């Protein structure tokens, strides 16, 4: 009997396992057993509430991004099920939008045309697409840049366009895979502030992967700590900071207390992963 969560839960992952086959000739030592398979997620279970901002933190290789791919329908679990709105995810859905660390803007399309991309697949007419894309560009302060190609935009601007592109189809769930990791520290903070401001005005659910505890605490309603590989949820920490989040909250004692809680849960896993690091494989599906 599957428990599919309450009405409040938009995403439910139940006992999810995900294995990857290693490239030919590669092997991995899993607790003394030599294998050509690597288990990235093992017994991963998580319920995500509608409209919440959930941040996944965990050591490298713990399968956080893999979980996003499962929710986004870009990859299938080896066993177990991920439900989105009570239906198992089997293919990319109109309900999800995806933002990548490498921006992944199409270099042959202008900023405006990049944002239109997802709307094209949904059969939205040209005038409507342009209208939506322009609204989003202006939301991110990029109205003057609609004709620019990605190479003509800074990293921060490119990632703004990428977020706008993901938001254009009005997804219920926004998947963000270390979206700010490639940006410099200042731009990163500015984008965190912009993102949280925009998100606080919507009812979009966000699943956000990061390695930065500060980023996690500043953005999240809840921070889910993932164990070292094979990943499963170790702990979920409620961030009891008031909303809307003000920029200066970062220097408050409450922020530090939350930060301490997250680090406490994460520390052991990071150490474990460091020891495992020399075994870190290159995997392919």
């Amino acid at each position, binding site marked *: 009997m599957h428990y599919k969560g309450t009405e409040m839960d938009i995403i439910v992952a139940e006992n999810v396992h995900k294995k990857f086959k290693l490239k030919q000739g590669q092997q991995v030592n899993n607790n003394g057993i030599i294998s050509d398979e690597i288990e990235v997620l093992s017994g991963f279970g998580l319920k995500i509430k509608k409209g919440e901002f959930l941040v996944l933190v965990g050591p490298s290789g713990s399968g956080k991004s893999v979980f996003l791919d499962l929710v986004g329908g*870009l990859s299938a679990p080896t066993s177990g099920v991920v439900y989105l709105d009570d239906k198992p995810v089997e293919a990319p859905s109109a309900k999800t939008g*995806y933002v990548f660390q490498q921006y992944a803007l199409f270099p042959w399309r202008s900023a405006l045309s990049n944002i239109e*991309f997802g709307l094209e697949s949904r059969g939205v007419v040209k005038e409507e697409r342009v209208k939506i894309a322009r609204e989003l560009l202006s939301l991110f*302060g*990029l109205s003057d*840049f609609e004709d620019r190609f990605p*190479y003509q935009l800074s990293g921060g*601007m490119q990632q703004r366009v990428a977020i706008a592109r993901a938001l254009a*189809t009005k997804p219920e769930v926004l998947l963000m895979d270390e979206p700010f990791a490639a940006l410099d520290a200042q731009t990163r903070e500015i984008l965190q502030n912009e993102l949280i401001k925009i998100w606080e005005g919507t009812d979009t659910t966000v699943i956000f992967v990061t390695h930065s505890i500060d980023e996690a605490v500043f953005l999240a309603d809840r921070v889910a700590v993932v164990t070292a590989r094979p990943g499963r949820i170790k702990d979920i920490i409620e961030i009891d900071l008031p909303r809307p989040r003000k920029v200066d909250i970062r220097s408050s004692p409450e922020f530090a207390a939350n930060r301490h809680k997250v680090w406490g849960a994460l520390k052991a896993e990071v150490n474990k992963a460091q020891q495992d690091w020399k075994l870190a494989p290159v995997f392919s599906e």
Partner: protein
Amino acid sequence: MSEEVIVASEVGLKNRSIDFSSYAKHGKYLLKGFNKWSQGIPLVLVFFSIWEALPRLGVIDPLFLPTFSTTIKTLFDLTVSGKLLLHVVVSLQRASAGFGLAILVAVPLGFLMGWYNKFERYTDLLVQSLRNISTFALLPIFLLVLGLGESSKIAIIFYGASWQLLMNTISGVKSIDPIYIKAAKSMGVSDWDLFRKVILPASIPSIIIGARLGAKISLMVVIAAEMIGAKSGLGFFIQNAQFNFMVPEMYAGILALAFLGLLVNYLLVWFEKKTTSWKGEIGSSILG
């Protein structure tokens, strides 16, 4: 608005003012391009001077190497009388027919081989074996099978031009950053849209490089093919001039060939810039 955006807007405004005067910008680029290009002129002049000097000084018998001025005058006369134009047009027609056919066949085949690993595994050995045979070595076979008419010439040009197009299309498809595919799939594209809107535009720069090489090969092969069993075309003209000991005409034909190659190359470079402007400055020089 955040600080970064304000800074960025200022940069944008600066660029914008250039955008407004786009004619000036275009002119400036042309001038810059010409300045770069013109640096190559002195060496060409030195080459022509040596050419002029050698027969004049009697180092080489003018019978075998007429002076540059004689050659240019012959080329001028041949052009004005329209004698040469006919041959140039015929050669260009053959080259473009073979080259066009190569695009129609090699590019789609390249997409199939680049995208479907299984298809590539089945075809790769045959393709690699055929690719490494010199096109010219096959010329007699094409003549035997297809005869002396147009079809054998077009077929051999098609064959010669196809390989660069095929290889570059394959490598274009294979080197697409998987993140673009992932991003497109996350937005729910159909297979056809994935091809049309991601795979095709992402491989265009590589295909165009293949097309440039293919076009050059087409020009080379057409000349060779016309030297064996043809009654028209620049290759025939050069060969015929040689047989009839019309040495200045022969050199004029070769010079015309050089101009033609230069022209085609500039055309292709221009086309490349036009179609891949989204990449910013492209690496290839104007002389490519």
